[in-house]
């Protein structure tokens, strides 16, 4: 590319996600409405949404957050319980779940950032949050699996076939992508990236490090809390096990393998890991349980040791022609 990009068209950046969403919208037709494939696609879309929400705190702000399942579980269980016990529509339940997640994120994040807790201690604190919720859930809910009752319709956001939920998840994914792109193009995004690079230098440029980190955490927790109900529905059950440290780690794995801060890399990683997991589980699940996790582990070690930039460089190369067409220039 020649000179620096001084002007990208004002809404040009919206084109790729919209085109992608349209393309993904055709998936049910492409798989001939095979319910299994659509369910897999739905799960991938939800996991990708969570991973891209994580990208805001983990990728842009550089804080290794391992609490995504805490927010996912809080939001999902709250919405599900509200529906089952009080008949509240999940549309409201999801908003309540998002608010509850944000509240918990504030309670944990405010002291953490206030006391300057970073790096390994931040990661451990978020693990601790998941552990606390996991064990608290056992006390409050007992060691049981709760099934989402077989109610149907848009009011309950639960259907006999999976297409509708897939479309809803896709809309959520598109929304999370737009939030990502919007954040990374806004003042907030530039500040988060500066914090990730060097907190002290950022602070000397006038960046209120605590405030912006907390903001990033709240956006992430809100989005993940909102997605919780969809996750619970695709899992069909919820329990204390929804608060799972390995799931949180899996989300961070997608973010790291996909490349921190890279939307397309993370999407690609979520899709590839999701499909690989499903394939491995379907094929070897009975004989070799945990094979997919073993593969993640090897992938993480290899990517981390050999190619610290993640998949992002690869996807960037692959997607360059597409990007150039839509934006008429390289973007950050």
């Amino acid at each position: 590319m020649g000179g620096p990009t001084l002007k990208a068209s004002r809404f040009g950046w919206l084109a790729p996600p919209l085109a992608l969403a349209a393309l993904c919208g055709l998936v049910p037709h492409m798989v001939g409405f095979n319910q299994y494939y659509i369910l897999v696609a739905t799960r991938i879309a939800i996991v990708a949404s969570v991973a891209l929400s994580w990208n805001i705190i983990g990728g842009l702000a550089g804080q290794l957050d391992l609490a995504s399942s805490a927010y996912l579980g809080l939001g999902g269980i709250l919405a599900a319980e509200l529906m089952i016990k009080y008949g509240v529509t999940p549309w409201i339940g999801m908003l309540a779940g998002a608010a509850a997640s944000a509240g918990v994120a504030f309670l944990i994040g405010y002291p953490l950032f206030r006391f300057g807790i970073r790096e390994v201690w931040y990661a451990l604190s978020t693990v601790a949050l998941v552990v606390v919720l996991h064990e608290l859930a056992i006390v409050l809910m007992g060691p049981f699996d709760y099934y989402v009752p077989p109610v149907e319709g848009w009011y309950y956001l639960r259907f006999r076939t999976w297409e509708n939920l897939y479309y809803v998840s896709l809309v959520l994914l598109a929304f999370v992508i737009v939030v990502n792109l919007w954040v990374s193009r806004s003042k907030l995004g530039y500040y988060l990236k500066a914090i990730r690079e060097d907190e002290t230098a950022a602070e000397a440029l006038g960046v209120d490090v605590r405030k912006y980190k907390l903001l990033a955490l709240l956006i992430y927790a809100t989005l993940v809390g909102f997605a919780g109900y969809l996750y619970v529905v695709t899992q069909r059950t919820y329990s204390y096990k929804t608060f799972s440290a390995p799931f949180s780690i899996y989300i961070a794995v997608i973010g790291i393998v996909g490349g921190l801060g890279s939307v397309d890399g993370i999407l690609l990683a979520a899709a590839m890991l999701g499909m690989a997991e499903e394939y491995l589980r379907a094929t070897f699940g009975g004989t070799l349980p945990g094979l997919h996790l073993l593969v993640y582990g090897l992938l993480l070690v290899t990517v981390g040791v050999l190619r610290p930039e993640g998949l992002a460089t690869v996807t960037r190369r692959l997607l360059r022609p597409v990007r150039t067409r839509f934006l008429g220039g390289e973007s950050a």
Partner: protein
Amino acid sequence: MLPSPSLIVQSLVDGVFLGFLFSLVALGLSLVFGVMGFINFAHGDFLMASAYLVWVLASSLRTEPLATAALTVPLFFVVGAAVYFLVARPLLGREPLMQIAVTVGVGYVLQNVALMSFRAEPRASLSYALNTYFGLGPVSVHAAKLVAALMSFAIVVGLDYLLKRTWFGLAVRATAYDRETAMLMGVDVNKVYVAVFGLGIALTALASSLWMTFGQVDPYLGASFGLVSWIVIALGGLGGVPGILASSLIIGVVQSLTTNIVSPSVKMAAASVVFLLVLWFRPRGLFGKV
């Protein structure tokens, strides 16, 4: 309902025993973190892997689990050195995020190899010699736990001596404080790193032999040991062996009290809450030096 005094005393004793074992595991991790600044999230998983090895050896050779340490400890020293060269060394000095991610990956590999090889059911290889209880006033003492605690304590004290009184220990402490200046003293820092990493992993093997005299192993055993070790380091600061010992005992007692008085299922939550509170109010740890 108030718990009976004897239950509390029993819990304290059990917690102290458990705490000594924790200190053995945490000391290895704190050495690796303190000396080379490497964040290992797979530390506990090495303990789990070694515990399976103990189980296999003890049940196939029909020996005491403790005796297998003669084989597992040197073996895991070598394993640690290998992991150092393959995984840790390329990541030294890199962002903590990558170190955490990669060691989580190592943990996944270990857990799932274990899951694929041994399935999820817990395995136990109880010690025949030590599986007895004796009374001590109102408290009943499990001989295996007592032996594990005493041996852990002896080894931790021995390591303290090693760190304080030998050339190797001097080199380790110098490297921990300032790697470059240690080089200027003629210390081969790379050798120190290999030794420390190997030692850290070897200690998990030792701890696993002690654990298997009364405990059992499943593929996820490592997670709780790993987390406990990190919590101990957060509490103890990097202020050396006394800090590690004291905070291990605190965590051991906290876990034992919650197990006996509330429920075994919340013992990690209790430890986590202690961890968060200490992190917030005493960021240098309870016993950390300034």
